[in-house]
């Protein structure tokens, strides 16, 4: 029996993977072929999706991008034998340079396994970290994570081990409070930054690694309850995670007696409701508690006073998903990757106008140019690349002069950018940077939680001022006003929404000034 793989991740589905899988299953049956259809996660080579893979004696071979209309010809030409004759043949999957040149630690299983099969997960090294952790004292688990140098992958890059130690050492007794005595693990899966999809790809392609990471976090700090705060824009991830949790409970990887150790960890999913601000950890905690997602002032830190007023670890999906490897292989093994104070690997996400968009997990230190050209293949449109936004909607737009900066937290910060969650959105030369600056303000207007006036009102005024600049009304004065407004938002907002919306605006002004000084009515493009 030969295994044939058709991914079930959102991108593959969005390009017709279900129709491909249905057609393939029908043809296999009608032709009486001996093959088993597996719905795997995506390898993250999105320009090849839907990507069919077939097991051969020398590894999997790949065909893509496949439509259902291609299936009969693919089978006629020997796809199930790994034939090279069809024009969609891509060779051995692992030998595709895009994949071969990566360093996949966190994503080591994604696209290889059936995401819901616990057997697959175990056979590929899964749950070894948890087994290690069950034999360690809480502080020893935290030591191991600290040794790895792992920093929060959500964007703020705070050392995970230090956060865990704080929660471990915080007394959860809060007399009179309803949840006194409890600690919580909260996974921030509100991946709202445009150009990022690594959390989604991981949750859809290898949900057990996140579950395992959360259980280990619980053991490390003494928490018996976890929540995954998942954005409602990810219905497919919701389906897969829900099923994975059910299966993990049935097999004793979650619940009241973890692997017969007597230890406890319960895990629940909470859905967001389309509010970008809930990706900010304190707004997320308010939302988790059933409130409007309003940003809280810090201190108190969530580690002291988090979900339901109790000590809480809040980590991004990728942070928690890096933990099983660290426990299984040792913190030092993880720390051996990377540069400077940016240890380990970062899943970069190539998005926007690139010929080869997808997921690229690499040690820190790769340059933006290498990601854009060696991996991304330049623009899909064939026009020159002009601007690249790194780190989500609050990140700067960088021109070509900045593309040789190594992607590490400190080096990017020195260059005026940020790694953030590792999202990279590429624009060709048809982009109008004045419009992109306007959108940054518009997005802040729509998504501000409203707590801080400079953010709530400033974003409205920001759109108006940029509109006047574009329309060539008192341009010099309005440009000065815009700089002033950016300064006010930056200094007067509690969180990154208001505080960093100026990043894309200022970078557009600094690096692409011509787009703001065109004659009115000539918006370029």
């Amino acid at each position, binding site marked *: 029996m030969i295994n044939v793989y058709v991914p079930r991740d959102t991108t593959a589905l*969005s*390009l017709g993977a279900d129709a491909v899988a249905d057609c393939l299953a029908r043809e296999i049956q009608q032709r009486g072929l001996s093959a088993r259809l597996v719905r795997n996660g995506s390898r993250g080579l999105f320009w090849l999706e839907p990507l069919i893979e077939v097991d051969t004696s020398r590894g999997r071979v790949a065909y893509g991008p496949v439509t259902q209309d291609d299936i009969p010809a693919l089978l006629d030409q020997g796809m199930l034998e790994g034939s090279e004759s069809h024009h969609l043949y891509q060779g051995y999957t692992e030998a595709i340079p895009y994949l071969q040149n990566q360093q996949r630690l966190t994503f080591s299983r994604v696209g290889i396994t059936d995401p819901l099969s616990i057997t697959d997960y175990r056979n590929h090294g899964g749950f070894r970290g948890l087994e290690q952790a069950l034999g360690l004292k809480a502080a020893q688990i935290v030591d191991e994570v600290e040794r790895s140098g792992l920093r929060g992958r959500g964007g703020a890059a705070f050392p995970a081990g230090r956060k865990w130690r704080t929660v471990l050492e915080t007394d959860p007794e809060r007399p009179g409070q309803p949840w006194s005595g409890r600690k919580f693990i909260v996974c921030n899966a509100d991946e709202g930054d*445009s150009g990022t999809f690594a959390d989604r790809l991981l949750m859809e392609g290898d949900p057990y690694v996140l579950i395992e990471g959360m259980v280990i976090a619980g053991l490390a700090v003494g928490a018996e309850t976890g929540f995954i705060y998942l954005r409602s*824009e990810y219905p497919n991830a919701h389906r897969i995670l829900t099923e994975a949790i059910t299966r993990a409970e049935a097999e004793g990887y979650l619940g009241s007696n973890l692997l017969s150790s007597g230890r406890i960890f319960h895990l629940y999913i909470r859905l*967001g409701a389309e509010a970008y601000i809930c990706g900010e950890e304190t707004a997320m905690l308010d939302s988790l508690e059933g409130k409007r997602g309003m940003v809280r002032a810090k201190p108190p830190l969530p580690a002291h006073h988090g979900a339901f007023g109790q000590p809480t670890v809040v980590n991004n999906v990728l942070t928690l998903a890096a933990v099983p490897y660290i426990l299984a292989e040792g913190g030092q093994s993880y720390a051996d990757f990377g540069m400077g104070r940016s240890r380990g690997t970062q899943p970069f996400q190539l*998005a*926007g106008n690139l010929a080869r968009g997808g997921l690229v997990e690499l040690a820190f230190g790769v340059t933006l140019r290498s990601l854009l050209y060696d991996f991304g293949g330049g623009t899909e449109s064939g026009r020159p690349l002009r601007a690249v936004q790194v780190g989500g909607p609050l990140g700067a737009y960088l021109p070509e002069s900045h593309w040789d900066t190594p992607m590490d937290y400190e080096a990017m910060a020195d260059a005026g950018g940020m790694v953030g969650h590792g999202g990279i*959105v590429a624009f060709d030369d048809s*982009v109008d940077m004045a419009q992109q600056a306007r959108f940054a303000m518009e997005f802040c207007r729509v998504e501000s939680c409203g707590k801080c006036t400079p953010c709530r009102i400033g974003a409205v005024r920001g759109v108006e001022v940029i509109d006047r600049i574009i329309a060539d009304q008192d341009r010099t004065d309005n440009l000065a006003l815009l700089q002033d407004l950016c300064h006010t938002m930056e200094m007067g907002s509690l969180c990154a929404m208001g505080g960093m919306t100026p990043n894309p605006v200022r970078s557009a002004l600094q690096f692409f000034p011509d787009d703001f000084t065109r004659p009115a009515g000539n918006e370029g493009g």
Partner: protein
Amino acid sequence: MQEPNINDQDNRMTQLIEQHQHLPGALLPLLHAVQLTFGYIPHTTVPAIAEALALSRAEVHGVISFYHGFRSQPCGRHLLQICCAEACQARGSRQLVEHTRQKLGVDFHQTTADGEITLEPVYCLGNCATGPSVRIGDRILGRVDPAAMDRLLDDLTRVPLRFQSPPPETSDTKRGPQ
């Protein structure tokens, strides 16, 4: 969409409240369940929600109105969301939005006159390398250019109404709802 029958609504609400009120942070899960059941969150359900969770009606209303994902009005038969975030902009979503507005004759947050389609923006569906992306129900579609949007809209509006009482079965009406 019609206002749900009040007695049916009360019965369903009683069930939904029983299922959700003991969850930690119960309000969002309950509101999701209400919206899934009725297609939106009727204002007539707010007092029961508030009472069950020991909140004021203003607090419940405040939460409903805070989140883009909660609707206090019914929407069209299909909710069509177009991703308007940067990665999709880099792949032509601005043009797609303009095309769709003109084709449907509505702006964002509006429903077509025939009640078929409500158009909404969404900020990122996590499908950022293969945009422009749109969401219909729980389906996400990629590489939606204007021509693909036209095909999608034709498909959506051609399918027979799902919740209509079925016509009498004769040989030529047997196709039924998809």
